[in-house]
């Protein structure tokens, strides 16, 4: 291993950030309390003062902070996003995670020395797309979509250099090309792309029905969990539907990504950073997952064997998958 691997961890609150740093995160990503970031949930995220304190805490403990402004600017109302970029730089961000090409252009011109990462929301999944962002805007790292195989990640990483690659290794799984998925917009009028929320809680309801839990999004019944059956997130892509007379999780099973067994291979092909999903999760999740992955990364460096059963209890549907990295889906 020539470059030290970076463990990139989520934080939805200042307490979550301190937990991630204390648990061994090399860097933490977070966002402001508005629609500029793709986890715009109630009670979550940082105001300006909290962000400055968070950056100071991370730096004092040897960690970095990346601020996500990874939704797409609204026509006629781009100031919110540009102000977010300026405030993130002023707060001491080590990197900005951006998706909108216009905002990338603004950030590069307004802050020429600022390190920029390309969000997974930009869906840059070809050598040409990555090269464009790298050569035109000096993007230092691209977060790759969760729809690629290990071999595809390998080829992209080779083409992207000197731009680094970052891949998701644990947490919620999007089967769709992120930044382009319209399912949430269709059902609720809101989306992670524009307003920072997928299947927003304002449009989600649960009700008990004869011992079963029924989940609805935007008035559509998407799932019925029978008594004792593990539940999942109330997103349309993880609902159970009838098609051709058969009921199934048509788009995606409610399972979490867990690519821990692939870490050595991903490191070997040159991936720089391993990302844990879950800014909406609690301190218990952050602490457990970050500690576990940090130990694995340290163990890899020391040539030790790894065993990670403890992560299963935190996974959606209580099950996990290596996702698209090994194409075993239906």
């Amino acid at each position, binding site marked *: 291993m020539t470059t030290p691997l970076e463990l990139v961890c989520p934080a939805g609150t200042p307490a979550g950030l301190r937990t991630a740093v204390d648990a061994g995160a090399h860097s933490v990503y977070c966002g402001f309390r508005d629609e500029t970031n793709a986890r715009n949930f109630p009670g979550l995220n940082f105001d300006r003062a909290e962000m400055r304190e968070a950056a100071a805490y991370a730096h004092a403990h040897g960690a970095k902070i990346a601020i996500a402004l990874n939704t797409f600017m609204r026509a006629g109302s781009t100031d919110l996003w540009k102000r977010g970029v300026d405030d993130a730089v002023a707060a001491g961000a080590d990197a900005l995670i951006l998706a909108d090409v216009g905002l990338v252009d603004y950030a590069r011109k307004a802050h020429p020395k600022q390190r920029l990462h390309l969000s997974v929301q930009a869906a840059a999944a070809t050598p040409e797309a990555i090269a464009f962002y790298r050569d035109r805007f000096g993007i230092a790292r691209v977060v790759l979509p969760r729809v690629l195989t290990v071999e595809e990640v390998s080829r992209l990483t080779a083409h992207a250099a000197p731009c680094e690659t970052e891949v998701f290794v644990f947490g919620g799984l999007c089967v769709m090309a992120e930044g382009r998925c319209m399912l949430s917009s269709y059902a609720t009028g809101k989306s992670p792309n524009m307003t920072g929320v997928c299947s927003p809680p304002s449009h989600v309801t649960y009700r008990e029905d004869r011992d079963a839990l029924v989940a609805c999004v935007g008035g559509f019944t998407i799932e019925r969990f029978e008594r004792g059956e593990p*539940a999942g997130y109330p997103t349309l892509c993880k609902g159970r539907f009838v098609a051709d007379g058969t009921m199934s999780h048509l788009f995606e099973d409610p399972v979490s990504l867990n690519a821990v067994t692939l870490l050595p291979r991903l490191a070997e092909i040159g991936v720089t950073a391993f990302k844990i999903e879950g800014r909406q999760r609690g301190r*218990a999740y952050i602490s457990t997952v970050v500690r576990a992955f940090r130990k694995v990364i340290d163990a890899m460096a020391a040539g030790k064997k790894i065993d990670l059963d403890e992560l299963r*209890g935190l*996974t959606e549907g209580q099950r996990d998958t290596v996702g698209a990295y090994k194409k075993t889906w239906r």
Partner: protein
Amino acid sequence: MRGHLPPIFANAAGMLPLLSLEVVARHLMSNAMAARPSFAARLGEYSGRTFAVDPVDCPFVFVLTPQDGGTHLSVVREAVGFDARIAAPLVVLLGMIDGTYDGDALFFSRDLSIEGDTEAVLALRNAIENADLDLSTVLGFPQAMQGPVNRAARQVFMRVRRLLDAPEDSGPNGVANGVNLS
């Protein structure tokens, strides 16, 4: 049921006058709010909503209305007229307050259920997460005593949770953080 108090405890708790429970609960809540003044600000527009926090193994329900000037709390036998309800065994609810449990994981495993205004529930969960509460803060202990009290409380709660077959501890206050490396 996993994590449920034995019926004898629940029955004994049921014999306590609701007013005495309410006085104690209000005192603890007041300590927590004094230590975490930004709690209501994090709730934002969901401040003022009424939450029924239902320990399903106990014969009472806590009804909270967090507000900027202070949180109103009452203890009732049966909650009506709430915006959202959060239900789980008592030890599980306590474990969410001190960060032992992750709310999403409890929801996935069906140890916790919610109904009503989902958005308000999320706001409350996230505000509690950020409050980073522990027993000594809730009890109003001085700073110097907090370390030893919290360490002892973690051990006691962990044993109680194991005794009740509650969901496994995880997180900053859990003890099962190790990864087996051989």
